[in-house]
């Protein structure tokens, strides 16, 4: 008892600071949510609560939600097929060249999204059908999210020494296809799942690239959000944010739970954790930035 009371001061100070930081982060979010549910933001909560802004968002921007989900799923499919294969290849042939490829793959993350988008537009802008289709945005998202899938899968493949497992399966007579489906995939499940959640989260929240690549008929959710903040009532923008939260928060929780599970199962899986942190900040940033 005495020790805890002696530590008391520092403890309360720490708690106060922690709560303060939490408030600093939560209050804007809460205000935004509240704004989306308020009849008239200039009068305040006194004007009464309503869901009519949410209904309005649904009727105005429903399509952006479906497009965002569609692109996210298509993006997931692409990165699963490409990323797992690429990671598998690189894990089996560890060398200078594969390390270089790994670095190159990170480029779209390091280069500003606007620059990548500009490159895509310069290259394919003349191809009208492609330029105006949602596939154009998909290409950008795949470019941007692929490295996250590759790194996540590659990390787990190196951690479990997939090369030797492969050799072992081969020594027992398994063909390449059998090895891939019975040994490689099941043992990389954790990394693939973590990568998949990250890809979906990043794709749903992607703004920089998408803002450059979109056309009036191919607006995604974050682009629509920017549009609503710029041209609609503040309440509609805020209600839109609520919709965005509803989509993104389950993904984040799932991802967090998964990486906690992974950390318990395996001692080190550094990439899933750090990537979880970046994606945690990233998808929220457009709305936060808009809000400020």
């Amino acid at each position: 008892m005495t020790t805890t009371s002696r530590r008391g001061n520092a403890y309360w100070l720490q708690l106060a600071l922690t709560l303060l930081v939490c408030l600093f982060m939560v209050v804007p979010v809460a205000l935004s949510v509240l704004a989306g549910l308020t009849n008239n933001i200039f009068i305040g909560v006194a004007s009464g609560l309503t869901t009519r802004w949410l209904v309005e968002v649904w009727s105005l921007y429903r399509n952006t939600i479906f497009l965002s989900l569609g692109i996210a799923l298509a993006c997931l499919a692409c990165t699963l097929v490409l990323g797992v294969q690429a990671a598998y290849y690189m894990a089996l042939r560890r060398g200078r060249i594969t390390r270089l490829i790994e670095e190159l793959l990170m480029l779209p993350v390091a280069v500003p999204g606007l620059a990548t988008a500009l490159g895509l537009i310069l290259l394919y802008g003349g191809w009208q059908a492609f330029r105006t289709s949602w596939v154009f945005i998909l290409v950008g998202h795949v470019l941007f999210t692929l490295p996250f899938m590759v790194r996540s899968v590659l990390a787990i493949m190196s951690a479990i020494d997939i090369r030797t497992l492969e050799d072992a399966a081969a020594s027992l007579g398994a063909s390449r296809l059998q090895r891939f489906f019975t040994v490689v995939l099941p043992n990389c499940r954790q990394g693939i799942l973590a990568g998949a959640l990250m890809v979906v989260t990043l794709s749903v929240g992607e703004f920089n690239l998408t803002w450059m690549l979109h056309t009036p008929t191919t607006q995604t959710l974050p682009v629509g959000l920017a549009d609503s903040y710029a041209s609609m009532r503040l309440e509609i923008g805020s209600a839109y944010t609520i919709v965005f939260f509803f989509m993104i928060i389950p993904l984040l929780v799932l991802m967090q739970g998964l990486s906690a599970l992974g950390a318990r199962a395996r001692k080190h899986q550094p990439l899933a954790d750090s990537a979880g942190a970046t994606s945690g900040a990233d998808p929220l940033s457009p709305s936060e930035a808009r809000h400020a």
Partner: protein
Amino acid sequence: MHEPTPITLRHCGKTFADGTLALQPLDLDIGAGETVVLLGPSGCGKTTTLRIIAGLEFPDPGGVVMFGDSDVTPLPIEQRGVGMVFQSYALFPNMTVAENIAYGLRVRRTDPAARRRRVDEMLSMMQLGPFAERRIDQLSGGQRQRVALARAIAVQPRVLLLDEPLTALDAKLRDALRADINQLLRSLHITAVYVTHDQAEAMALGDRIIVMDRGRIAQTGTPQQIYRAPANAFVADFIGTMNRLPAVPEAGAWRVPGGLVPRQDNAAGAAQPARAELLFRPEDVALARAEEAHLGGSVVTALFLGNYTRLLVDVGAPAPLVVDTTRRDAWHAGDRVGLRLDTGHLITLSEALAA
């Protein structure tokens, strides 16, 4: 079980992509049912040789790998019918013990009833019955080792390849498992190639030992031959403890630091080397009274090791001599002792070989 398969390597060399020559082209004949140990320090080419036999690496053009009468050189590992045990065991973490053992049969599409019978047989043979449904991460090191062995032999491979299978275990377990593996290899009557850097393991397991050094074979022979008659200085140094004395021939004797050692070989017929090196094991030298001693020196250290005492004796040679004795005296640094060699067990290397 089918007839054991002999293995033949002809002119198998290996150059890696970066240009390093890992293995000088070598010829190797491994008899049917024989256990051969590839022994050497890391980087000597023993693992590369094993991987060439396995089909995990392919020899440079010109190399040929034969299993019995069939040329398996172009076949990848999955078509060679080998069983392999890896240093890290490489058990599949997504499967139970029983599923691991059944894997080879499963990919061969063996009939499920036969598969189950074979797995049960393996489980009881390796005393793994109670662990059949366990996950791999719930097993001890020794149990994992036994699963790895069971998995490799469940498919009745033509040859069994073991890549440092005991290195990851602690010393006591290693001794116990070494005996188990030895018994297993005898009872299976299978051709086995065993890679290790541990000479005690090699001695205990091998019908024949192939000592390798810097990508080539340094010596091939039974454990006794390798230990008692090393062909060169590398083998002498690598296997067991060896004393070395520079020697200059005199009439009927070798002049060595600390004294004279009588010559056994008939000096008249043989070419007279200008210089030579005398090699002998710690057990082939005994403490002796001054008048019977060949050499004299002073004790550097006395290590009491229980059933014997190991003395390091400085006779003026580059390295102190190692002398094992069962006498129960107490020695102190600086004590003068006389040494008598068992001249029948001396090994003489002329300088050219000893380089």
